[in-house]
């Protein structure tokens, strides 16, 4: 296979890790909403934790994106 084509395919596969981030972010927000609906008085206190979880989950997926960018531009 040509190197250029292999790089493109590799970068595409690496970006698939963002699917995991999507699932994770959806899971975090759905759990937060479920908890907040059951006990609205405790919801406000957990909002920073929600944001922290969102940022951490999103970043894990973005590591895959960085791998893709490294494949495309650094090699």
């Amino acid at each position, binding site marked *: 296979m040509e190197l250029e084509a292999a790089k493109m395919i590799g970068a595409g596969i690496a970006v698939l890790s963002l699917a995991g981030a999507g699932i994770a972010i959806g899971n975090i927000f759905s759990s937060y909403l479920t908890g907040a609906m059951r006990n609205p008085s405790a919801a406000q206190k957990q909002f920073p934790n929600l*944001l*922290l979880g*969102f*940022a*951490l989950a*999103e*970043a894990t997926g*973005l*590591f895959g*994106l*960085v791998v893709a*960018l490294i494949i495309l*531009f650094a090699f």
Partner: protein
Amino acid sequence: MATNPMAQFEVYRIGPEIKLGSIDISFTNSSLFMIISSLAILLIFNLGSKKKSLLPTKIQLLGELSYSFVSKMISDTAGSKAKPYFSFIFSLFMFVLFCNMFGMMPYSFTVTSHIIVTFVLAFFVFTGVTVIGFMKHGLGYLKLFVPSGVPALLLPLIIIIEVISYLSRPISLSVRLFANMLAGHTMMKVFGGFVISLGIVGGWLPLSFSVALTGLEFLVAFLQAYVFAILTCIYLNDALNLHH
């Protein structure tokens, strides 16, 4: 060149070339934006603390809000022992926040979208936390790698995993901020390119998406500064309150 989404991350020299031995230490657009954000922080907090009125003005309110925000974050995550490190975490948070926010301006340069900048910040946090841990607890700090309540058979494996996860802290801390900034700004440029290439007929859809994306990017710019600071607090908490 303007259509290349990566062109915005290019570092170029402003003014003459300065060389220190074989190292190029010329003034670049990256250094320019670091200076701009530092000056903006200085300006806001100097103006905010000049006239200390009981009924705060807008700019004083901004300073007071950010002070109490970071102060509360530190006491919540790292306890009262972390109070002496307030000024470090506060300036770290403000610097990352302002660099991210100045990067959101059109035609500006995002300092934090370069891994060397975020890695140096994260590496100083990591070194500082390790030094503080050894100073407070001596060799007892190594107990951090031995979690309590683990069966003796699993202990060698757990210790190796803990050491690796400890050593990868600066990498994960820096790559998280860098990747978020890089991905967000690339995505905004790509959608901006769609608006141009689809023209006046089909360009409205990517344009509206681009507007929404800008809002998301402002959120991410704040969140990543927050996460950077709060993870520093959590690492500091490990070093100060060692309980296993």
